């Protein structure tokens, strides 16, 4: 059975070892390289998908420039960029406590939508009947409550029976969207499900419509950073996330922490919903959150659950999204082109982590070479 084999053929071509650590600077270098490579592939994808580029290959430079122009081309675009960044960031921040606890909350979409519903239903029923400031306060409370309830339901079952939270929260998204559909049928007698802009319940604007949202999100980032790293609650969340058995061993009530943290996570999603409802839309559709609940999961993960880092990652995703949207406008591609671009770049960033954690050794005599 033991056959003689040629050494040169049989020795593995590439041999892997785990890196003990890497300098942060080098790691960031790899990540930036990954994004650049991803952009290159996006260019190639664009060639395949976009007719106008195939006909005028010289416009490829313009193609890349459009990424920047889409986000910062005009002051209006820049404001919109920061607004979208803020909403995405606030949802990602809301997910952070749950993710640090290794509670895979895929239900941010639904929790945020419930936050929007909470605010809009208060505005719909009481708008104009009570003072505007009171209305805004009630909307705020209602948003937080709705989000928290939507977040805590899966948590209760997770705490009691260890029910799979990934799928539970995912399904809750759809339940939420049909609840909104139900209310739209009730609220809009015409049956068009188009509620239109409500007259009441709009956050005051200080200088610019988007300023409040941006400031609140910045404050939230700082608060969450402090909460997670310097508070006892944050410490408990980290211990539960790292090892449930350690948490039990030192007397942390794991179920209690899961429930408490998901109330917080859900309520923060509700807050994002409030900002969408009272700060921006003043109406609701089943698409009010528009998939940002899912994008936020990736934003959160890319930043390694670090609130400060999330400013960067949500910025990157928003930049790509706006840039690609501009491209689909300028080059007349389907409106879903941004998803393709974001997807490709994410693949590259996700893949780049490998080169940060592992080292490659190529065949050769004791000569080691690491791939950057």
């Amino acid at each position: 059975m033991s056959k003689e084999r040629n050494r040169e053929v049989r020795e593995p071509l590439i041999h892997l070892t785990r890196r003990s650590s890497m300098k942060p600077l080098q790691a960031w270098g790899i990540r930036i390289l990954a994004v650049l490579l991803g952009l290159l592939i996006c260019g190639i994808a664009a060639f395949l998908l976009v007719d106008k580029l195939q006909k005028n290959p010289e416009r490829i430079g313009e193609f890349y420039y459009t990424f920047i122009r889409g986000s910062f081309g005009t002051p209006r675009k820049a404001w919109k960029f920061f607004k979208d960044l803020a909403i995405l960031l606030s949802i990602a921040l809301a997910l952070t406590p749950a993710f640090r606890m290794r509670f895979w909350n895929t239900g941010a979409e639904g929790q945020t939508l419930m936050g929007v519903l909470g605010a809009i239903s208060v505005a719909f029923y009481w708008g104009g009947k009570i003072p505007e400031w009171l209305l805004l306060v009630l909307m705020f409370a209602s948003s937080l409550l709705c989000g928290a309830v939507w977040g805590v339901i899966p948590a209760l079952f997770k705490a009691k029976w260890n029910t799979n939270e990934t799928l539970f929260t995912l399904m809750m998204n759809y339940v939420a969207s049909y609840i909104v559909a139900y209310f739209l049928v009730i609220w809009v007698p015409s049956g068009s499900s188009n509620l239109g802009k409500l007259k009441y319940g709009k956050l005051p604007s200080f200088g610019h419509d988007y300023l409040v949202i941006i400031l609140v999100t910045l404050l939230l980032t700082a608060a969450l950073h402090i909460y997670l790293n310097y508070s006892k609650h944050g410490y408990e969340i980290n211990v539960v996330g790292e090892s449930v058995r350690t948490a039990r061993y030192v007397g942390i009530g794991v179920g209690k922490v899961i429930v408490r943290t998901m109330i917080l996570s859900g309520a923060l999603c509700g807050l994002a919903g409030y900002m969408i409802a009272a700060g921006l839309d003043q109406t609701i559709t089943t698409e009010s959150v528009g998939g940002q609940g899912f994008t936020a999961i990736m934003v959160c993960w890319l930043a390694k659950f670090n609130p400060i880092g999330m400013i960067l990652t949500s910025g990157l995703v928003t930049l790509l999204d706006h840039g690609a949207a501009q491209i689909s406008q300028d080059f007349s591609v389907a409106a879903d082109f941004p998803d393709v671009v974001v997807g490709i770049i994410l693949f590259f960033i996700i893949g780049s982590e490998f080169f940060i954690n592992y080292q490659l050794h190529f065949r050769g005599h004791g000569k080691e070479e690491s791939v950057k």
Partner: protein
Amino acid sequence: MEKKLALQMRGITKRFGSVVANNHVDLDVYQGEILAILGENGCGKTTLMNMLAGIYFPDEGEILINGKEVVISSPKDAFDYRIGMIHQHFKLVDLFTAAQNIILGMEEQGRYNLKEVNTRVSGIAAKYGFHLDPQKKVYEMSVSEKQTVEIIKVLYRGADTLILDEPTAVLTPQEIDRLFAVLKKMKEDGKSVIIITHKLNEVLEVSDRVAILRRGEHIATVNTCETNEAQLTEMMVGKKVELTIRRPDPVDPTPRLFVRNLNLYDEEHVQVLKNISFTANGGEILGIAGIAGSGQRELLESISGLQQLESGEIIFKNPKKDRPVTFFHKSMKKVQELGKEHAFHDGNGREISFEGMRRSEIRKLVESGKVLFREDETINLRDRTPLEIRQLGVHLSFVPEDRLGMGLVGSMDLTDNMMLRSYRKGTAGFLDRGKPKALAEQIIEELQIVTPGVSTPVRTLSGGNVQKVLVGREIAYAPKVLMAAYPVRGLDINSSYTIYDLLNQQKESGVAVIFVGEDLDVLLALCDRILVLNGGAVTGIVDARTATKEEIGLLMTRTESREGGEARE
């Protein structure tokens, strides 16, 4: 006697990051011999053998089989060269039956026919004198059965070279004898058997030759009949060491923890603890022996409040007689209650009941230190959470078996790990990292922990240092009862002796130490009494100064109990 070379390793080097696990190791293995690979934990024995089994790939060096150079880059290659390894942590799929595990990954011709496999497996088992039901699922098996499956798995593939990694660690003395008999039979069959171990007596008993490894280097290979324990030890450790464990006589042992008729069921409604009763004394080390999985973990977890008991009592006796009560662990309410229960006196025989006193007056009196306990305090720990046990003022420390999965958080640094027990201190919502950091620094200093600093994740430390961090933290809590599960597992000799010393120090300062061990020699040398568990029941409590290994081995496997039987009445 002329013997034929089976395989050779030449100049094998393997590094993990900056750690050199094996440094230019040479090794010869002959046909029809038992070769022991001897070395301390962490000296690279397993790593070296893993390269024969195709788990690791060497950075440098070559492997020759029957004189020809070969490349083993996967376990499949190893099987093709008729090398089979039985890993220390069994590599079996729990949900599969024995037969399914045995044929796993084999590329046999013909239909997938489990019945046929079952017959062949039974045949091999019979040939070497094993007992095995091929249709039993692995998760229903005892440790020794699992090992049997592993050995038959290797034989089924027709291996000529068998590597066994620490095969005796989980067996009773009787099972070890049986295993050695099987190994000798294989040797007579012309197979090469390599046995990795750190136990000298086993080396001398079973092997023909011994290869000694130290810190990843090959020190020497000697014929077993030409060597002795002292010489082997010196080669293994690198210096002359006295391998006896100190055992001070217990000073004034007083009952500290009473465990009465504990019954516990696991999540699948299987009874894992059966009517367990014993008393642990302060100033004494109580050993717990038993085959792995006999209820050791569940027993310690029950005492520390991590299990929901079916029935039974765990009573902690706090020596408080004639000592003043404080508000440190008792609330005002609790003190008032105790007063009504005639718990206090004033030192002159008069009772203090606080009757008719205002709270401020009580506070003044208690703080003056003139309110003394009349009797020792007894606290029932049954149905208390770990947190409640702490709040009751019971100093119970627990060094669990799973250090990084339970005792510590691997990704957190030393400071944050020190905080695990104490982070709740203070009323503010924020953490105070100052004291834990000081404690971490102190433990590093006192226990000579090798670490770049207090902000290094503990996962990156070596096994011995991880254990010192954990034991250090648990001892810093000034325990009255200290429970340690397999505290020296995987540790090198120096670290092991540090741990033994720490346990002895605790014993001498009056702590009731409970030590769960697997090495019977260590248990017999270190403990004062040894409690033997079998299948979740106590089969005996023996005096460690007079008991023998064989006696304990029998207790580990016998079905009916002696002392436990009385407790069942």
